[in-house]
């Protein structure tokens, strides 16, 4: 076995097209037409590595019909199944291979990979031990530790291997471990190195992902496009591009990339469902429904897809039809009650919707139960008698908070309910679904490449019509680090459009940071209140940073300014004083990390632009 084959195991692990594509293409050309089992196995392997799964499986089937005692035959077919995402048959094939030749290390290594994809890290570890001294096992072993949450252990094991035998895949695996350790810049550096050494499709896609997470979406798109060129038959890079465009609110481009992915896998119900979400956000409901109809035909047993299709029908206003289908048993619990509640809410029958949502909540758990209970509360609040609004404005600026949509306030909720048109500035499908509770027509706020920020604002304002109340929906606080809200206000002023804005939970409150700080520094009580600063501003005016005051700092700044600011902090705080960092911008999961001032610079440089810092007061205040 050579290294190229070894990389195949890594691609199994992540379900992506294999590396070494050109080698395998050459290998396939070399294979003479023959019907013996060994040749068929070689052919199957090459086809499998080239991403031609069905042809590969056909070749393996024929090979195994001729020789079912070949461990290689079973193992390679198992690998092919793995690449197709078919874990059950893969597991059966790999078990058979291990039974036939328990000492063949590649069979055991593949089995380890299979177990790892199932989350069985203990089982995978045993298989890895049986794989003997295969050097490729270092990759799998490191990923195993990462999957266990012991990224540091994987890191320790991988580094000596990397030092003695540096390679693209090893750098890429180390990058994944760095991600597990919260070191995004380090991961990106490793992926850049990996892409420099061996720009395989998998490495380029990982690089694209890290670039996108670091806020560099254009280079991310370029890396993803390079991956697509390497594996033109694979839908994965196109799907990745679609998701990157989607994250950045370039919705038409996202849809175009998604169409390419669908073209390559026209019978993938999951892809069709994902495309329908794009259609939904763009308000293309008929196309969303068509796609979901096709997805349902491809996967007739999928209750989820049936639910999604009926949900779109509800959004298209076909309430009676949807309720009739639910009554006929089209959906099982809890989706039957949920969609009934959804339809009733949209229809304006809020009080009746409450019980259906609660019923759905009782029949479900975790996040879905939380959503159902939240929707029940939304209906309950909206069924209260609303205070009369004497002179309603033409335009509302609304926010759904940080933990959206759950943190929406009552007045924001009422405003959304009164709007006939809602501009959705959030790509989160959960928000799209939430906004579907209201009668207003939902429009996506799309970015256009090379258009100034004011461009989309002008498009929104152009859509505001007299007598047709319009709302704009964003997250966090519209007036805290939200240029689009500022631009909306400016244009509304210019056009003499009456508008109203509402408060929202923002990062300024830094609820989590304050909560954590209170737990860890309960004895230190500062004055009631806080100071809030922009990092660059404060770095240039150090006298404003007074350690006796609780201070919140928005860290939207480059590395140079961050370093300058950390020097200011070091002058004023003790090395062991603690700062709290609220990291994770955009729609990503946010987390609070605490760090001693002496380690602040290193930590801050590793966090994204949206980081907000809380410096607790040093002295006892009032």
């Amino acid at each position, binding site marked *: 076995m050579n290294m190229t084959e070894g990389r195949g195991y890594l691609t199994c692990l992540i379900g992506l097209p294999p590396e070494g594509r050109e080698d395998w293409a050459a290998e396939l050309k070399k294979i003479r037409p023959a019907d013996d089992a060994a040749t068929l196995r070689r052919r199957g392997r090459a086809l499998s590595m080239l991403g031609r799964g069905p042809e590969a499986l056909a070749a393996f089937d024929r090979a195994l019909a001729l020789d079912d005692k070949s461990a290689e035959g079973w193992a390679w077919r198992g690998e092919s199944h793995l690449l197709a995402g078919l874990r059950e048959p893969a597991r059966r094939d790999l078990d058979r291979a291990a039974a036939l030749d328990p000492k063949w290390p590649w069979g055991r290594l593949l089995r380890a990979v299979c177990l790892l994809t199932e989350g069985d890290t203990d089982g995978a570890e045993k298989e890895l031990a049986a794989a003997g001294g295969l050097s490729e096992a270092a990759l799998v072993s490191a990923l195993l530790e990462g999957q266990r949450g012991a990224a540091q252990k994987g890191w320790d094991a991988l580094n000596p291997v990397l030092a003695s035998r540096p390679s693209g895949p090893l750098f890429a695996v180390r990058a994944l471990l760095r991600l597990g350790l919260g070191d995004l810049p380090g991961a990106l550096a490793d992926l850049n190195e990996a892409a420099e050494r061996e720009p395989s499709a998998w490495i380029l896609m990982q690089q694209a992902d890290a670039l996108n997470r670091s806020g560099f979406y254009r280079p991310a798109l370029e890396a993803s496009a390079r991956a697509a060129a390497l594996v033109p038959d694979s839908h994965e890079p196109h799907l990745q591009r679609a998701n990157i465009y989607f994250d950045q609110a370039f919705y038409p481009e996202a849809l175009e990339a998604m169409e390419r992915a669908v073209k390559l896998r026209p019978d993938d119900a999951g892809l069709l469902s994902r495309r329908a979400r794009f259609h939904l956000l763009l308000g293309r409901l008929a196309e969303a429904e068509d796609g979901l109809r096709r997805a349902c035909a491809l996967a007739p047993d999928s209750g989820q897809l049936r639910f999604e299709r009926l949900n779109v029908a509800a959004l298209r206003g076909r309430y009676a039809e949807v309720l009739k289908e639910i009554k006929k048993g089209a959906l099982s619990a809890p989706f039957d009650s949920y969609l009934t509640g959804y339809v009733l809410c949209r229809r304006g029958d809020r009080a009746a919707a409450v019980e259906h949502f609660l019923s759905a909540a009782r029949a479900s758990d975790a996040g879905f139960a939380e959503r159902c*209970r*939240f929707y029940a*509360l*939304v209906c*309950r*609040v909206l069924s209260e008698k609303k205070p009369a609004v004497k002179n309603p404005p033409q335009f509302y*600026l609304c926010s759904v*908070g*940080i*933990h959206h949509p*759950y*943190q*929406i*306030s*009552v*007045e924001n*909720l009422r405003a959304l309910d009164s709007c006939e048109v809602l501009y959705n500035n959030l790509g989160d499908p959960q928000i799209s679904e939430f906004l579907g509770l209201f009668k207003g027509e939902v429009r996506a706020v799309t970015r256009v490449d090379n258009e100034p920020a004011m461009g989309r604002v002008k498009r929104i304002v152009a859509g505001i019509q007299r007598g047709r109340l319009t709302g704009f929906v964003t997250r966090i*606080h*519209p*007036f*805290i*680090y*939200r*240029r689009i*809200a*500022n631009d909306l*206000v400016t244009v509304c*002023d210019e056009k003499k459009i009456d508008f109203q*804005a*509402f*408060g*929202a*939970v*923002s990062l*300024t*409150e830094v609820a*989590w940071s*304050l*909560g954590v700080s*209170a*737990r860890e520094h*309960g004895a230190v*009580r500062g*004055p*009631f*209140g*806080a*100071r*809030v*600063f*922009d990092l660059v*501003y*404060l770095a240039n*005016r150090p006298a*404003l940073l007074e350690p006796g*005051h609780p201070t919140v700092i*928005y860290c*939207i700044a480059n590395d140079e300014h961050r370093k300058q600011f950390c020097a200011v902090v070091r002058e004023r705080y003790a090395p062991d004083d603690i700062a709290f960092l609220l990291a994770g911008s955009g729609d990503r999961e946010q987390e609070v990390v605490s760090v001693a001032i002496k380690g602040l610079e290193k930590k801050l440089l590793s966090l994204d632009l949206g980081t907000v810092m809380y410096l607790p007061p040093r002295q006892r*205040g*009032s």
Partner: protein
Amino acid sequence: MEKLIICGLGVRVPEETTLESLQALADCRVVYCDLEDKKGRDWLKGYCRALKTPASAAAVVADAKKGGVGLAVWGQPQFSSRLARDVELAAAKAGVEYRVFGAISPIGSVFARSISFLGGDYGYQGIQAYSVQTLLEDPKAARVDLPLVLYAEKASPAEWAAILKRLGASYPKGHQGRLFGPADAEQRGELAGLKPAHAAVILIPPVESAALREPRRR
């Protein structure tokens, strides 16, 4: 699952109350409500199983040991409620698991109502927010070169008058503030001339400075 949850209801109740907090309080066995405003209290009562007035932080924490206790306060708990802070510290000391929910603070409220921005090249670059009580106890806490958000739920007219008089002396003559009470209407005028009700939030722009931006709006 926490035995105690602490929720801020925003500066105007129920308008600024988040549904997340409302849901959490609705799930509680009993909610201790430290809210002056009767209308807001009555509204919350409609969502809670039992609503009580807190006697003390110790009493809230003692009950919280049994679980299912909520504390509802004005504004944002860690910005504006002494009771919330005392309860939080007592709970931590007693080892009672608790959680503080996000809430709209006086800053968040006043920014929306005054159409003021923070950040970017269009908004303030820094701001300070203090309770009336804090500034009465520590007049030097606030600086005139930063915009100030001054707030209280339960300050008496005498306390408001005292702090506004004191602050008025720190700012140049004629310096104006913008007062937002529980109702929507805004009061604008010289600091000493503002007449807040018990609960109010006032935005005082900074003393003119080239380095600090004025709010752009109204």
